[in-house]
């Protein structure tokens, strides 16, 4: 039994030799601290997260699979390639327009399996319930998980339930873990982007993050926005079929779902792992009017806002256009766009041509985006 490739769900690894670029457009004040305590930013998907994961986890567990740091591990067991991924879901509120925590917990794991080209097979779910949670809410969440699992054709086969004292949890936390099988000769990995490759985005960005934000009571936004939460496995399948039909399945270099940390964070990860540059075109990135409106008012950048039903792919230029055509026929890919390309220089960085023709650096944030006055 050997191990080919694998990785851990995280965003970027900021190593000490490679001090990061300060986001030219980030939250206003951005210093990092060597925090003696966990702060919210450690869960943001940004540099603080990466630093924590690197210093606390990766340095202690060092092994070739974990070191790959993808959103899923790909294990070779008995000649089969199995994908294995885990995520905890802690969203507030539990129910939001377009979905709920159960939906999210199934689709998030389905998507992490899909992103390495795996067919989702089996799911486990571990629940941490806060004393006082209305049982009916739990039932709704579980029904939603069932529907999501059925839709993604994944089977929930094992689980666990713990209860914590009131005030020691937050209604429901769900950890889902998925197993899938990689049964095509794909070679998808964040270190395979090459100069000349195209960057594909499957649709509007920021819907999930802004939907959640607008549900927080003190912000009091109203909109018809919905989370984009959806299972991407069939869109991925369509893409793999198209690439295969073009005799170039290896032309799909890598895929990622830009969840926590958003498009900017994921693309920076790919740039660094592949040791290439990337140039995006702001005007080709689809953002809904409501997401833009909320972002303008709060001073947020949609490039850093979470999505739960979008994928980014780096693909060979020869198949990019065919993939776009195919993706647009899929209900989850109707707004697919080529949003940029891989460049040779400057390595490890993402630049963006702005709508007015300027250029800026698109870096990873340190922590969470905060509403700004300035």
């Amino acid at each position, binding site marked *: 039994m050997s191990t080919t490739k694998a990785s851990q769900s995280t965003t970027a690894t900021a190593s000490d030799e490679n001090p990061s670029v300060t986001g030219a457009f980030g939250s206003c004040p951005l210093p*990092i601290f060597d925090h003696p305590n966990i702060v919210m930013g450690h869960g943001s998907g940004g540099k603080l997260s990466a630093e924590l994961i690197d210093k606390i986890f990766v340095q202690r567990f060092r092994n070739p699979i974990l070191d790959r740091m993808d959103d899923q591990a790909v294990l070779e067991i008995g000649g089969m390639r199995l994908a294995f991924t885990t995520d905890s879901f802690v969203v507030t509120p539990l129910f939001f327009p377009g979905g709920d925590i159960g939906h999210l917990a199934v689709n998030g794991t389905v998507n992490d399996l899909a992103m390495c080209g795996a067919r989702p097979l089996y799911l486990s779910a571990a629940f941490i319930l806060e004393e006082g949670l209305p049982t009916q809410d739990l039932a709704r969440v579980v029904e939603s998980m069932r529907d999501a699992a059925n839709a993604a054709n994944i089977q929930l086969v094992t689980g666990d339930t713990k209860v914590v004292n009131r005030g020691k949890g937050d209604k429901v936390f769900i950890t889902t873990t998925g197993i899938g099988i990689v049964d095509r000769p794909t070679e998808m990995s964040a270190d395979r982007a090459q100069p000349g490759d195209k960057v594909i985005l499957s649709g509007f960005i920021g819907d999930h993050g802004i939907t959640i934000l607008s549900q927080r009571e003190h912000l009091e936004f109203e909109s018809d926005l919905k989370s984009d939460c959806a299972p991407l496995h069939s869109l991925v399948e369509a893409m793999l079929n198209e690439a295969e039909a073009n005799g170039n399945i290896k032309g799909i270099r890598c895929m990622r779902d830009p969840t926590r940390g958003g498009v900017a964070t994921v693309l920076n990860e790919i740039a660094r792992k592949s040791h290439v540059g990337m140039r995006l075109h702001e005007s080709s990135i689809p953002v809904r009017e409501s997401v833009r409106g909320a972002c303008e008012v709060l001073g947020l950048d949609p490039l850093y806002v979470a999505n739960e039903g979008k994928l980014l792919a780096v693909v060979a230029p020869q198949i990019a256009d065919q993939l776009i055509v195919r993706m647009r026929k899929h209900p989850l890919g109707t707004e697919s766009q080529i949003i940029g390309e891989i460049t040779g220089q400057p390595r490890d960085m993402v630049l963006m041509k*702005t709508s*007015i023709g300027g250029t800026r650096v698109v870096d990873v944030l340190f922590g969470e985006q905060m509403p700004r006055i300035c």
Partner: protein
Amino acid sequence: MKFVDEYRNGDIAAKLVQKIRSVQTKPWVIMEVCGGQTHSIVKNGIDHLLPAGIELVHGPGCPVCVTPLEMIDRAHAIARRPDTIFCSFGDMLRVPGTHGDLFSIKSQGGDVRVVYSPLDCLKIAQANPDKQVVFFAIGFETTAPANAMLAWRAKQQGLDNISLLISQVLVPPAIESILGSPQNRVQAFLGPGHVCTVVGYAEYEPLSAHFRVPIVVTGFEPLDILEGVLMAVEQLETGRYAVENQYSRVLDRTGNRPAQALIAKIFEVSDRKWRGVGNIPQSGLRLRDEFRDLDAELRFQVSDISTMEPEQCIAGQILQGIKRPHDCPAFGTTCTPQHPLGATMVSAEGACAAYYAYGRHLKDTDIVTIGETSR
């Protein structure tokens, strides 16, 4: 979005750049006063579009950068109090004081809340009558009406558990201080459009006249800024100096009278210390005597705050456009965005932080060149 999208038109931007290029005959140093303008410039890559001879320098208009370290430490001391709900705009949460930032205070159990509007504090105070609600009222003239309204409403509603920790500063004295320096390099200003929306621009006229410097009150969208630069360059090239209003759809010479009235009712002008610059006479606002009971500085006697900015930091000169980050020996070595030593490294709009982002990479490759030519 109306009044937003139009001003991000790439074609018109290209024409404006072309126009600037055609008007410009020699190099000019122009300061955009406001951090919001700096933000827009960086976000849209406007600096990379301008002809090489137009040097934009970042002004002191970032309330986060200029809030003195003592004030930040005072805020932190109050936020640590167990009986207190400390409310702040999001920008301030990551600003380090002597012992960590508001995020770490929150992580240690402090009740720190991000508000979008000062008015949110009224609801919080009503819902938590047994807690002291303290609002960190930072800002320039633009934010003063909002902070004033909080004080006014708190008083009117008899909410005696609200107070304000005030760090309100005014732009004209800062411009005066920049222009008054013998080392001044700034030849024209993009005036702060949203500050002037509140106060008008009449008070900029004596400055322009006295220092013979063009001031173009400018908006925040890319086309606003490019037009503001064009208007400034046109004045510079023709040897004129006047206050002009690029942002006429939003503001006029007199500003917002009702806002000015409430500001005057609540606040009075006072000396203020600016981080990195030091004390500037009559450069800030404080609560009038009738509202002093709302002053968190008095309500919570925080003793023994003595802070020291590192000696080698030249942020004050940088904030005034006199020196550039490269001139600082700490830049990029002991001072980085992860561990900022001074004001201009604290915030993303601070000049040191912005230069750090680019400077490192410019050693190897020119971002702009590559960004453009590898198309």
